[in-house]
């Protein structure tokens, strides 16, 4: 009988409390959103299930939990805390990215830069709300709308905030169809939304595609060496893709490798988000600031495009500024759809993809800059 009672006292039913139950409900919500609504399923499903697993109570000291050394989850979590998984994800992203639209329309790169102002505005807001500088940097990078970048920087600056930052970043990325369109419509007139982008029918040569990743990595990493772990693999993946001589490696990077990293990244980030860490006033502040970050990033891209139009003969459709955030291809798709609502024959997708690609580079540079400022 005593043995039985001892067993009962070690079960999750006995050890649970309301915080674990709340977090399991959050995890189940993410799983539901991923499967039923198809909101960013590649990320929300692993994160959601990880949250469920991470909030199953257990008797500490047996090497079971993600924060206990010698546990399987702890070994897998090493890829998050060390920044390994985000680097691998960026390798795969580079191998999947086609920079032709950006090379044909280099002016649109400036919109990717402008959208990163959301990061710096959020940095100031986070400091004003009382967060410490390293925490503020981790929260600010949510404005880059890039999940792996957010996790990478948070792992370096404020590892205790990985859970809330990652969940905020990915949640807002999934909510782009809700967040961005009202801001785009608010900041643009109907005439501006109807602007058609000129077609530049120049074929991008293979040499340009080969030189771009080399020039990009040298220039960006000389400027912000702390972004080497992200931009180095990113441009390497892209070079593998365009070189044409290592197709097998490029395909593997763009499929198996990035998928493996995504699974472990999402799962362990979710598992690290435990009730006693996540259900705090700080997390509420992080979610609030994350919404501000996304909104300011969208607005700054759109407003910068309007500013550019003051000096340009051939106007840019200011909706493209919203695609300067790093959420590829979600924000490009939203820009295209908003443009199509005004004029169904206005195709902004390829132009928006140019801004999106630039946003990926911009957010990684910002992560490197913040890391070098705050380390």
């Amino acid at each position, binding site marked *: 009988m005593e043995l039985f009672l001892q067993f009962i006292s070690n079960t999750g039913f006995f050890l649970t409390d309301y915080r674990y139950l709340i977090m399991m409900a959050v995890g189940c919500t993410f799983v539901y959103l991923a499967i039923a609504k198809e909101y960013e399923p590649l990320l929300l499903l692993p994160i959601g299930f990880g949250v469920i697993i991470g909030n199953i109570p257990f008797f500490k000291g047996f090497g079971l939990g993600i924060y206990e050394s010698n546990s399987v989850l702890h070994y897998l979590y090493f890829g998050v805390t060390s920044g390994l998984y985000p680097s691998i994800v960026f390798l795969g992203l580079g191998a999947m990215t086609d920079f032709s639209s950006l090379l044909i329309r280099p002016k649109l790169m400036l919109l990717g830069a402008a959208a990163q102002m959301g990061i710096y505005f959020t940095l*100031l807001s986070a400091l004003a709300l009382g967060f410490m500088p390293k925490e503020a940097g981790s929260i600010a990078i949510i404005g880059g709308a890039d999940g792996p970048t957010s996790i990478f920087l948070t792992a370096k600056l404020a590892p205790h905030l990985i859970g809330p930052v990652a969940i905020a970043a990915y949640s807002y990325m999934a909510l782009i169809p809700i967040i961005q369109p009202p801001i785009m419509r608010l900041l643009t007139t109907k005439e501006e939304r109807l602007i*058609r982008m000129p077609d530049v029918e120049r074929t991008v040569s293979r040499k340009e595609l080969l030189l771009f990743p080399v020039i990009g990595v040298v220039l960006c990493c000389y400027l912000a060496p702390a972004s080497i772990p992200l931009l180095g693999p990113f441009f390497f993946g892209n070079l593998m893709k365009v070189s044409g001589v290592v197709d097998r490696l490029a395909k593997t990077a763009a499929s198996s490798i990035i998928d493996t990293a995504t699974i472990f990244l999402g799962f362990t980030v979710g598992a690290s988000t435990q009730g006693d860490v996540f259900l705090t006033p700080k997390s509420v502040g992080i979610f609030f600031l994350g919404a501000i970050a996304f909104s300011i990033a969208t607005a700054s891209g759109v407003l910068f495009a309007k500013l550019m139009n003051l000096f340009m003969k051939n106007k840019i459709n200011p909706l493209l500024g919203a695609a300067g955030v790093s959420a590829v291809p979600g924000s490009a798709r939203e820009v295209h759809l908003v443009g199509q609502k005004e004029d169904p024959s206005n195709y902004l997708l390829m132009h928006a993809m140019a801004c999106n690609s630039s946003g990926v*580079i911009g957010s990684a540079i910002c992560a490197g800059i913040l890391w070098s400022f705050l380390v």
Partner: protein
Amino acid sequence: MYGLEAINAHNGWAMALTGAIIVMTGLTVLATIISQLHRIIGFMENCKSGKAETETPRVEPPVMETQPAATVLSDPGSCVDRFHLMTTDAGETFDLTTLHQIFTQNDDPHPHLTIRSLREQGYLVSAGEGRFSWKP
């Protein structure tokens, strides 16, 4: 510490301003380089081949705000059948990115203009949720 006092104490203004300037400058320089890249490559290739090349300025077509694009297809009927055949593997509905890739792979010199023309002439119809299909 909260508010402006916290920002001042932690050098927030300097970090934000410097970071913004660095990222804008970096991407501006990168954009400038890649905007000239094709000319540099062309110049180097001409130097290699020993020919003097006169640089022709890149002519961008004017922005068409309300008028439809010029029709690319000279014989719409037969060309549409050809395009239809190209997209057999893409399924009943497809997105424009896939269509663009298919046209590029089949050596269409102006895939974007072709898609626009097909759309404007009603051969491509929207099937909802960003997908399109051929007019029945």
